[in-house]
């Protein structure tokens, strides 16, 4: 009876949304998202597709250090327009936080930035945004783990496993890689919404009606999200078709496409946005990530698919993976060392800066994983037929590799320590023309109130 009442209640709630629930969508705004203005604006104007009511604090304009410079907002003669007057704004970056009230009290909200004679920061660095949270660390870690299952799984199937494998192993491979493909898309969406939530600084109920366009279109992260979401849906489709038609060859474009898409993280992270970044740092970052996910994904396939389902293939597959793993680890370590030197210019940063401390823990875990790998290579490999605990050992190595991905996620979300003054001047000089313009994402000062 209670269940029936619940179902009826749910249906009624869907059938009769309250008599007036109109909510407005922002159609245009002046200044525009991330617009760089040469002349300071005298007012901020937002136009919606429906009528709205402005409260005095409906549009708030903040300077980079959090000083409120706007006056009381009001609705214009055209009820779809809302505006606020601002004094003559000096040169600098500004954050606009707005919320519009519909007649029923339903609120839509948004945030964007603009600059007066300077480039505007991305909305993720708007005044009030607090930066990545613990939830974002976890989500990014899940994203890395999903990439490992997908890219590492496909790479393992194509490069390490023989052309024909037992059906049970083939099914398990597709299950694991399929979980990875679905998770990459889902977790990517969650990561994007979390980042937008931080920029908008809204409780969940209001976030549902928050305008995400400035984050999607105005940040490297947003553009990477768009490209990666679209690309990984095609990877998922290719993976599905490979399973459906038994055409292993379709996995090659899936692998190439997913490795290419992984560069979206390198092109939108520290290696692309921070001072000192170059095509070389982006390439190193991409190689680091690609080698890591191929290695970790291969370990998972070995432990979760080959060992339990194809005992006859264990030896051959283990030996093939043992030949590939050192090459992957060499790329991983070399790119990692280069990036560490780039981001931590002083050795003391390793123990004095938060970023360095996390890196130190990561290095310790990498050393443990390398030692574990060496143990497999030199001790287990010659005795492969006589040991009964190899699978447990592989699971252990996979677990350490996964925990390294967690630390990598924290590092990606953290800000590296600032460059020394002299080095920064040398690096920054060619980029700063005119001298006041900072590259997007370079400054962290706008993040903290």
């Amino acid at each position, binding site marked *: 009876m209670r269940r029936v009442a619940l179902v009826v209640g749910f249906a009624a709630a*869907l*059938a009769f*949304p*309250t*008599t*007036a*629930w*109109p*909510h407005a*969508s*922002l159609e245009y705004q002046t200044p525009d998202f991330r617009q760089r203005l040469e002349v300071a604006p005298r007012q901020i104007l937002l136009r919606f*597709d*429906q*009528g709205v009511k402005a409260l005095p604090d409906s549009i708030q304009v903040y300077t980079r250090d959090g000083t409120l410079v706007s006056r009381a907002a009001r609705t214009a003669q055209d009820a*779809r327009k809302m505006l606020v007057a601002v004094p003559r704004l000096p040169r600098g970056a500004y954050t606009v936080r707005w919320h519009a009230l*519909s*007649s029923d009290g*339903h609120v*839509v909200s948004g945030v964007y930035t603009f600059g007066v004679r300077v480039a505007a920061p991305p909305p993720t660095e708007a005044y009030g945004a607090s930066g990545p949270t613990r939830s974002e660390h976890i989500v990014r870690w899940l994203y890395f783990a999903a990439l490992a299952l997908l890219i590492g799984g496909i790479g393992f199937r194509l490069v390490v496993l023989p052309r024909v494998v037992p059906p049970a192993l083939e099914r398990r491979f597709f299950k694991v890689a399929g979980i990875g493909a679905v998770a990459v*898309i889902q977790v990517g*969406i969650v990561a994007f*919404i979390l980042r*937008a939530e931080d920029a908008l600084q809204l409780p969940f109920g209001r*976030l*549902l*009606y*928050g*305008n*995400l*366009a400035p*984050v*999607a*279109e105005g940040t490297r992260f947003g553009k990477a*999200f*768009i490209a990666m*979401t*679209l690309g990984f*849906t*095609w990877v*998922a*489709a290719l993976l*599905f078709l490979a*399973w*459906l*038609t038994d055409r292993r060859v379709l996995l090659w474009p899936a692998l190439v496409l997913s490795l290419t898409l992984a560069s979206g993280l390198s092109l939108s992270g520290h290696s692309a946005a921070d001072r000192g970044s170059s095509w070389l740092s982006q390439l190193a970052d991409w190689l680091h990530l690609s080698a890591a996910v191929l290695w970790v994904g291969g370990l998972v396939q070995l432990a979760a698919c080959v060992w339990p389902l194809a005992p006859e293939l264990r030896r051959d597959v283990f030996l093939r993976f043992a030949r590939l793993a050192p090459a992957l680890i060499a790329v991983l370590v070399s790119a990692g060392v280069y990036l560490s030197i780039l981001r931590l210019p002083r050795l003391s940063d390793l123990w004095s800066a938060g970023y360095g401390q996390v890196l130190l823990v990561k290095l310790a875990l990498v050393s443990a994983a390398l030692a574990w790998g060496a143990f497999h290579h030199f001790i287990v490999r010659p005795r492969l037929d006589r040991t009964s605990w190899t699978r447990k050992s592989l699971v252990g190595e996979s677990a350490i590799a996964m925990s390294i991905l967690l630390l990598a996620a924290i590092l990606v979300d953290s800000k590296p320590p600032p460059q020394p003054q002299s080095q920064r001047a040398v690096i920054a000089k060619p980029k700063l023309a005119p001298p006041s313009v900072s590259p997007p994402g370079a400054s962290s000062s706008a993040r903290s109130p």
Partner: protein
Amino acid sequence: MPPSEHVHWLFATGFLTLGLFLLAEAVVGRDVWKVRAWRTYLWPSTMFMLGLGMWPVMVFFTSSTLHMIAHGAWAEVMMFAGAAELGLATGKLQSGLWRLAIVLAFVVSGVGFLAHEQNPWFFQRSSFLHHLLGWTFLGAAIFPLGRAVRPRSTVFASGFALAFVAVAVMLYTDRDVAPVFGHLSPLAGPPRR
């Protein structure tokens, strides 16, 4: 970006194609339809491709979180249902329970339409259509459910096909801001045409 109604019309064409394939199958009967093996894959692959095509809508139309989530959910369930039906058609999937994937797609689509439309029925034309589409999907879920239990039933097969045709017609009539039954909320702004 194209106006959202143009995107709706594009998907209407996809659903109409899908509905006509299914209607043809219902009219001639499953055995005749299967004489050419490729016909078996027609509607599931159309459904799968429609799901794939929904992703750009999800990532490029980000005016609200809810809008984004709803379109993402439609993309996923359409791909999932299309994939399950393709798996059944090729014999890769054996369990008849996979036929429930399309039922799930109908239910999720219906709830998605109703949840992401926050305006009442008569607020504007698109609101009316969203409510109508939502309830059509929820009500019509009975047809794929019946089809899963009684695959040879003409009633369920025809109902299933006509549900897609009806959805296509509704999507074709979508215009963003236009009066419906002579009524337009003053809050919706002036009609565009």
